[in-house]
């Protein structure tokens, strides 16, 4: 089960995202302080830390979704595939096609199961009817949902259970062929059985995608991630192989957190 990476591996792997001196502000209030991190490619990186420590804020910079809110501001560098995506010249539509995001609650669009997947596809690709349905099927298979929904693709997505909806959202993100998938506590609104399915799914995603998983569930981080970053009060306290973080953390705060002394 434990595929957790080693410290040597972390150094040798190419990084998908390189964050340099990232600072983030909600209006006048600073939420992230000098974040530096290299997210290894085609691995699962977990971000843990107590509530309000900036985990979600941090990954929301990667697809610049924070820009929907006027007062939110990021400074520094976030390099994805060699390009600083914080530059104003970056095409946001293209960025968000390459960087998929899954939210704390399932967010099925108010349309059918099929259309939920097809929607994102059609925003980015001109595809014929047959290719569209092939790609929807493919995305649903990768999202480990196909067998459960193949007979009811025309039904409204919100008729699915919460866990199915969340896998639908993962499939929807996959459909546009992103390289990086951000998951912001994807299991926080989902029961344990459905959570297990999503964790299994995350394991399979690692072969093709880089996954960044924000979680407040340390067992989850230990179960599914190769690498773990510990955030505290907007700072990245420690980043390393998951196994090492959980068995032999270098920092005092990390140890206190994972042993349940706070958080």
């Amino acid at each position, binding site marked *: 089960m434990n595929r957790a990476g080693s410290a040597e591996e972390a150094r040798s792997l190419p990084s998908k995202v390189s964050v340099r001196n990232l600072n983030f502000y909600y209006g006048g209030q600073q939420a992230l302080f000098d974040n530096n991190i290299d997210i290894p490619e085609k691995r699962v990186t977990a971000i843990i830390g107590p509530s309000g420590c900036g985990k979600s804020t941090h990954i929301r910079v990667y*697809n610049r*979704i924070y820009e929907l809110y006027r007062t939110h501001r990021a400074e520094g560098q976030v390099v994805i595939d060699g390009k600083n995506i914080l530059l104003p010249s970056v095409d946001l*539509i293209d960025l968000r096609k390459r960087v*998929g*995001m899954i939210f704390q*609650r399932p*967010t099925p669009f*108010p349309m059918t199961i099929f259309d939920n997947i097809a929607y994102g596809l059609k925003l980015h690709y001109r595809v014929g009817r047959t290719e569209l349905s092939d790609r929807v099927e493919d995305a649903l298979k990768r999202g480990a949902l196909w067998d459960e929904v193949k007979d009811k693709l025309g039904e409204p997505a919100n*008729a699915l259970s919460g866990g199915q909806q969340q896998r639908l959202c993962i499939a929807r993100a996959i459909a546009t062929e992103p390289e990086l998938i951000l998951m912001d506590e994807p299991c926080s609104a989902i029961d344990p059985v459905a959570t297990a399915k999503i964790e299994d799914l995350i394991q399979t995603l690692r072969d093709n995608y880089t996954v960044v998983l924000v979680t407040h569930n340390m067992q989850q981080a230990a179960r599914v991630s190769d690498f773990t970053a510990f955030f505290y009060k907007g700072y990245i306290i420690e980043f390393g192989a998951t196994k090492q973080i959980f068995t032999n953390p270098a920092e005092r705060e990390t140890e206190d957190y994972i042993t349940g002394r706070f958080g």
Partner: protein
Amino acid sequence: MNETTRQRRVDRAFRILTASCALVVIVLMGGILFELLRNSGMSMKEFGFGFLTSDAWNPGAGEFGAASSIFGTVVSTAIAMLLAVPLSLIIAIYLVEVAHPRVSKIVGGGIELLAAVPSIIYGMWGLFVFAALMQEHVQPWLGRWFGFLPLFQGPPMGIGMLTAGLILTLMVLPFITAVTRDVLQMVPPVLKESAHGVGATMWEATRHIALKYGRRGIVGAVFLGFGRALGETMAVTFVIGNSHRISSSLFDAGNTIASSLANEFNEASEPIYLSSLFELALVLFGLTLLFQTLAHFWVSRMQRQEAGSR
């Protein structure tokens, strides 16, 4: 033991109290319908079904027909809805999705104020300001460029069907806008974020996700405006010209059911005149009921579709 009987008694009293308050609604509804039917009896007997199809309105000769009033009601309402619905949606989208929060607050406050302006004020403004504007600028311009359409032919008189429709537009606009804005504000931010997250633009996220998510509420908003336009009386009476005829030109004077009622009740000396007005009121009552029922079915069908076939 005592406690439960006391509880039961209180619950019973509560049930009776609330039920009797609700009963008032039914009694009122029934009472209105009964009075309208009773008072329009004479006219019904006299004109029969022809009352609905005849556009003759000749109090001197004792001839009465509702067709021109029904026509005017439908046309003025249609103008209002055709213009107000898209405009309201655009304004609401702007307020929720585009505008700076401060701008949104100011404009939104203005919209709410507009909704609160009494209709008589719209009527006075319509007659003294807006009608003159229509006569001097809008109607000549329409006549010049679109005069080949029967809709825009004839002398620009200022008052008339078009002016009434436009005044109605201005009156229902704030209603539909305010409710649509509230509906759009209820769309969960995370849903919008996920639309943007798959690469939708602001327009795509609004059109495909937010509007669709809130469509039941928006239909409700539209019917709220529709109901108001259908029954609006004072402002329309001021600017429509109050003439009982059906004309293909929107520049011509016309009337609506509500405006005729407001205008003519105190002139109605003959019993048959009075009875005809009551029947006219009955028609308006029926129209309103019909459209409310349609709206209800529409919304509940949408609800069923959304709930899915599970």
